[in-house]
């Protein structure tokens, strides 16, 4: 898992986290709410292209390629296959493609967001949006804990596999399995949490003064352009349509 840290090390994000949040909402509204004709279709294509371009900018070429291909297949399916098929086959295609194509773009954008934003950028952005500390600090700790949880549970699962044969026998069962995994996970995360709080306090986390930030969170030209575009889309979706 590489969320909330730069996947491509050394690379800096170009968009402000606030722009990303707005785009996430707008993209989902457009993709879920539009059809396949006229302006609707144009909007869909623009929205679907945004994650593609962004993946290329952060040099995730493989992700971009995969996403692009799946997208093309989706559009092809919805625009060509569905009108030209009938009966069970048509139903099958509608059921499989319909929901998937509607979440795909939003999901891809959320993925981009997570691998191009660091925790400190996110926290700084929340601060700029006047989100109180009581929300932003627990949130940032939560993000910090995802990779830790993954690391710990990997180690625990290894330990279980060492005794795997025994667990499947008399002592087996799903509930037991869960207990065996969750109890040590809870214990070790509690301990890590405890030590982490101690370490953070010695670095003045609760010194009580407003913190400063070194990360670069600023609305640039690109951000404003995308914000304008988003607002235009929203206007179309809510008023013109």
């Amino acid at each position, binding site marked *: 898992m590489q969320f909330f840290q730069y996947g491509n090390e050394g690379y800096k994000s170009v968009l402000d986290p606030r722009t990303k949040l707005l785009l996430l909402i707008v993209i989902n509204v457009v993709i879920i709410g539009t059809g396949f004709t006229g302006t609707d279709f144009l909007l869909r294509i623009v929205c679907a292209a945004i994650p593609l371009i962004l993946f290329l900018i952060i040099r995730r070429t493989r992700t971009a390629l995969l996403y692009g291909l799946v997208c093309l297949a989706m559009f092809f399916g919805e625009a060509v296959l569905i009108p030209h098929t009938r009966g069970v086959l048509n139903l099958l295609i509608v059921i499989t493609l319909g929901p998937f194509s509607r979440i795909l773009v939003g999901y891809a954008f959320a993925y981009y967001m997570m691998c191009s934003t660091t*925790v400190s950028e996110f926290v700084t952005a929340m601060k700029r949006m006047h989100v109180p500390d009581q929300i932003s600090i627990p949130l940032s700790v939560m993000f910090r804990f995802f990779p830790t949880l993954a690391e710990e549970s990997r*180690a*625990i699962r*290894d330990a279980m596999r060492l005794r795997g044969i025994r667990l499947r026998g008399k002592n087996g069962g799903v509930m037991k399995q869960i207990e065996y995994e969750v109890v*040590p996970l809870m*214990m070790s995360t509690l301990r890590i949490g405890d030590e*982490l709080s101690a370490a953070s*306090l010695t*670095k003045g986390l609760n010194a009580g003064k407003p913190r400063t930030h*070194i990360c670069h969170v600023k609305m640039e030209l690109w951000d404003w352009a995308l914000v304008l575009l988003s607002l235009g889309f929203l206007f179309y979706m809510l008023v013109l349509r």
Partner: protein
Amino acid sequence: MIKLQNVSFHYKNTDAFGKLQKTRGIDDLTLTVEKGAFVVLAGDSGCGKTTVTRLINGLVPHYYDGELSGTVSVCGLDVRSSGIGDLAPHVGSVFQNPRSQFFNVDTTSELAFASENLCTPPDEIRKNIRRVAQEMHMDELMDRSIFALSGGEKQKVACASVAVSEPEIMVLDEPSSNLDAAGIEELARVLALWKAKGKTVVVAEHRLYYLTGLADRLLLLRDGKLVEEIPGEQLRSMDNAQAEARGLRSFTPIAMPEPEAPSAEKDALVCEGLDFHYKHSDKGIHIPYLHIPRGKITAIVGKNGAGKSTFARVLCGLEKKAKGTVRFGGREWKSKQRPDLCYMIMQDVNHQLFTDSVLEEVMLSVPETVPEGEREALARQVLDQLDLLPLADIHPMALSGGQKQRVAIAGGVVTGNPVLLFDEPTSGLDYKHMRQVAALLRKLRDDGKTVLVITHDTELVREIADCVVVFSKETT
């Protein structure tokens, strides 16, 4: 700079039986550390050296609950009346566990973290980060994910992250516990830099050899009291026998013993053509031939990243896709069967304790071939062997670190597996406990087990190893 006057501290906590109790941290301790001094605190686990570091950064009494008497002053601040936050600008702390001392997930944010909390202007923080990165030669560690770093690199980042805000005092609590020899060397370089810059440095540590060259004084604590003060000059002229007499780990570095050519026995553990590589990573092993004698203790040593842990995982059957053959006792063991051949006691034993009592924990590992009526008797017998019988009904998580390790070992012994593998069994242990683990390993060997020990601890290797196998990037 730091003044402790008749200080006593008792932690409030609960014992293994759930009773409220007070544990002595330190007892009527008086000491002074002058500005710019480099002081090493040594002594057994539980001698109070960690408590002293916590008094300096304010975690005692403000984070860890207990009873404090006497006066502690740090940089002119009374620790009792000022909070941890007030001490933060003056004291930088480095802790033992690299997994739990980073608030951020990327290195640069972590370096900035303390300064950001102290409201330093962003431009100044950036300048300080650049300076520290240069001083510590760690430009290649900037903007990295902390989860992708090695233990040594993490500890370097931990040191750098306190250095950025330029506190006058640095306290370190067993910073070398999880490091290999190369990591310790790096750490020693950072400490030398701080000493040269005139910082006041206080290190609580078991491993002493890397500190003897730097220390102005070594303070030996026992049962919460200061029992001996050794000036740096004298310390540097002392030998390891004198360390041992004081129950301390060696003062001078101990060289790894030379590996011996393995004698050709028939029923040894033989690995041939072991080959395994992780996906999306250049990590892995390639072992054409490895011979490990039966019924002996074999130490597996080598730098971080040489493939020791991967080898352990392959040997225990955790990596099913590994190629090659493993032979032992006249037959071949396939990946799937290897959990019955080799049992691993992990470095962090907390990961392998699952149940709510010591007895149940051991029962869980009893092989299914043992008849129902004899299972508990067998488990109790193994517990008795390891002096754990009085603790049979206690929750494993309520035990001390050493006891937990023994429970994990009991879980391995009861399986009846002929091979037991230990991953860093003595990391962070003092001399006394290291000796205890060594004695236990010897006992397992004398009971007929083939014992493999992955370790960086040269003192342990000297103590127990019948054979030594060196892993390196070239040979694996």
